């Protein structure tokens, strides 16, 4: 298997090149087939890799030396272990489903070939990100997915707002990337290498057991994760990223790319474990993001925006999990989230497709009968994300919350409340879309139709995964010894587990905790039902007055406006100031001043030349005499 590992990322790259070159020449059917097929083959190979990891543990694969300076070498190497093999499965598996879905979703788009080329390119970079055996290969993928995200958000770049959203995503990611790369620099100085295989074993040994550098390193790495995984304060790009086609939102901005931050931290878990300060920061940032994003999601009316904020919120959960030391739990949530969030996005895409491009939930309603498959699958997804057992989200979210409880009771309380919010806004979305009367135009109603099979099959597959996906991580309190995922991943987290003291609550406490969160979710569900179905409440139009708090939530706490005022405008002002005042007047003024000074002084001095020859001769004689005097009377 090791010999063919390089094929996993190369196949999508080949797809990118072929589809990229032939994007206008090749028939659409072929483009769609090729792109999906290559990812499917990668998926097959990933299964092979996964099985091999299961049998023999992790294994590396060497490709070529990328660049080197003296002893410092960066090679293009892959490392397949428990963590990356699962990520491989998610990326290629979910990726394949989304490719399949896109064939139907994008079939009328002029940029069909371009879209699949970009999608393949994204898969390539994402695979590099998770397969890299050192931080620099990871960084290639890290920035590469950012590029693809930029390209795909700006896919319909004719709309300036979309182009701006793409730009914003790239730049915000770049802010994080700077932190990431400086973190890598410190790692290189500290360990003399950027290879995982060199760093992690060393870090676990006692002579490297000083906290300070780890705090700095991990905080910087975390800055990278904050950018990529859309945490506070760099989360505003993700909702804007919904400008991209819906399959992109599902693949990049829900299932894979945005979870790269969690993957990276889980990968470097030993460093983070050695820096409890950072872990605490991560927990706080994660929790705050989860709450803020959930609050914003409560009042959004665009179906994709709701899902976007819910993604931010769920990512916050994952960071909370990492922060409280529940590495497995956080990663588990990455996995289940990939299923149900991809499902929800694709479902939303199916709704939008059926509604002829309408995204405003105020114009929807009563779609249950018209889009039955979409409805049922989305219902499953909503149940999963709300944490209702036995759907996938319940297990992973519960694991995070259980760890949070042992870490801090107040954090747990906020976490549960956020979970209630989640349940509320997700069911709000579901009710507004599928229950009640149709509120759109007559024309939309006329066109309303269930999506083609290439779109519904991925929905069904993902729905099944959202139902059963949680069973690989059944908590010990329910059925001891059946946390398959935990066992599988344990080699990755061994060193951390040795340091973190395992504080487990008693079985009864854990079951109580589960009951509380499930109860909370159910209450929110019921409340949403009463409000949006019984009372048929519909969010008010944009221009109408809202209560102060609702308005704050609806306007996303004015965070974009805040950034605009405190960062973008001052920088633009500074730019103008530097250019006009400092550069043109200041520095160039001095330079030109020297030139002008020379001219001016020559203007004065040349008046000495009167043009009178007698005067010249006189001055000459005076000169000669004074020189003579000087020489004679020098001493």
């Amino acid at each position, binding site marked *: 298997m090791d010999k063919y590992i390089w094929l996993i990322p190369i196949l999508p790259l080949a797809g990118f090149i072929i589809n990229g070159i032939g994007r206008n020449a090749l028939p659409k059917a072929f483009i769609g087939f090729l792109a999906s097929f290559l990812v499917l083959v990668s998926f097959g190979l990933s299964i092979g890799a996964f099985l091999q990891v299961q049998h023999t543990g992790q294994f590396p694969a060497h490709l070529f030396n990328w660049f080197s300076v003296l002893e410092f070498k960066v090679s293009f190497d892959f490392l397949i272990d428990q963590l990356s093999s699962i990520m491989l499965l998610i990326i290629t598996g979910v990726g394949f489903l989304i490719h399949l879905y896109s064939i139907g979703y994008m079939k009328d788009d002029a940029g069909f070939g371009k879209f699949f080329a970009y999608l393949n390119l994204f898969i390539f970079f994402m695979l590099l990100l998770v397969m890299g055996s050192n931080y620099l290969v990871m960084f290639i993928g890290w920035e590469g997915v950012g590029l693809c995200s930029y390209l795909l958000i700006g896919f319909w770049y004719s709309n300036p707002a979309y182009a701006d959203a793409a730009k914003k995503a790239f730049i915000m990611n770049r802010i994080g990337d700077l932190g990431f790369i400086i973190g890598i620099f410190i790692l290189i100085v500290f360990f003399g290498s950027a290879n995982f295989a060199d760093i992690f074993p060393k870090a676990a040994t006692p002579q490297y057991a000083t906290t300070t550098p780890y705090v700095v390193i991990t905080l910087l790495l975390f800055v990278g994760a904050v950018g990529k995984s859309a945490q506070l304060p760099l989360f505003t790009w993700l909702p804007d990223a919904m400008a991209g086609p819906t399959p992109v939102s599902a693949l990049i901005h829900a299932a894979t790319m945005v979870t790269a931050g969690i993957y990276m931290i889980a990968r470097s878990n030993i460093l983070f474990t050695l820096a409890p300060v950072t872990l605490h920061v991560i927990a706080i940032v994660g929790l705050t993001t989860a709450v803020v994003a959930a609050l914003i999601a409560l009042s959004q009316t665009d179906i994709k925006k709701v899902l976007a904020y819910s993604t931010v919120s769920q990512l916050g959960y994952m960071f909370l999990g990492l922060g409280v030391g529940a590495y497995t739990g956080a990663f588990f949530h990455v996995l289940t989230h990939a299923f149900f969030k991809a499902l929800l996005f694709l479902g939303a895409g199916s709704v939008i497709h059926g509604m002829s491009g309408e995204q405003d939930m105020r114009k929807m309603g009563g779609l249950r009968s018209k889009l039955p498959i979409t409805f049922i699958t989305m219902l499953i997804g909503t149940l999963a994300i709300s944490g209702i057992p036995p759907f996938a989200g319940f297990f992973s979210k519960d694991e995070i919350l259980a760890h949070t409880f042992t870490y801090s009771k107040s954090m747990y309380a906020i976490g549960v409340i956020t979970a209630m919010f989640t349940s509320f806004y997700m069911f709000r979305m579901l009710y507004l879309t599928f229950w009640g009367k149709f509120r759109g135009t007559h024309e939309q109603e006329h066109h309303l139709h269930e999506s083609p099979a290439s779109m519904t099959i991925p929905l069904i597959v993902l729905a099944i995964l959202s139902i059963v996906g949680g069973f690989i991580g059944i908590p010990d309190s329910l059925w001891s010894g059946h946390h398959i995922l935990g066992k599988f991943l344990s080699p990755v987290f061994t060193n951390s587990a040795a340091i973190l003291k395992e504080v487990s609550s008693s079985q009864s406490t854990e079951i109580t905790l589960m009951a509380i969160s499930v109860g909370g979710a159910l209450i929110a569900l019921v409340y949403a039902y009463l409000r949006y179905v019984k009372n048929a409440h519909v969010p008010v139009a944009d221009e109408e007055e809202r209560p102060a708090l609702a308005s704050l939530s609806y306007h996303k706490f004015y965070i974009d406006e805040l950034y605009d005022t405190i960062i973008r405008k001052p920088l633009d002002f500074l730019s103008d100031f530097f250019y006009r005042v400092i550069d043109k007047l200041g520095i160039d003024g001095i330079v030109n001043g020297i030139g002008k000074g020379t001219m001016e002084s020559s203007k004065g001095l*040349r*008046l000495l*030349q*009167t*043009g*009178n*020859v*007698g005067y*010249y*001769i*006189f001055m000459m*004689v005076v000169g000669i005499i004074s020189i003579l005097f000087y020489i004679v009377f020098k001493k």
Partner: protein
Amino acid sequence: METLTHNIQAIPLNHYILLSSIIFSIGVIGVLIRRNAIVIFMSVELMLNSVNLLLAAFSVYRGDATGQVFVFFIMALAAAEVAVGLAIIVMIYRNTNSIDINVLNRLKW
């Protein structure tokens, strides 16, 4: 030749120096106060020749011929200078119908 040398040496060197200085000063003053280019030119020659005289005198007194070589050198140079200088003056006269140097005040800035 011997007698000539003797005769020259009969006059004290101081007299030569004095004479040369007077001629030189006349030249300088002539250059400074006259406005006629030809006269100024002649004054310059006067200065040159006063130096020539001095060189010759010293040469004889010290019995060293080098000084006289220089005199010849200066005379040749003066001849060349006169040729060029007069040519310039002629050109000035043709252009301005005057050789008054105060008219030539455009040699400025």
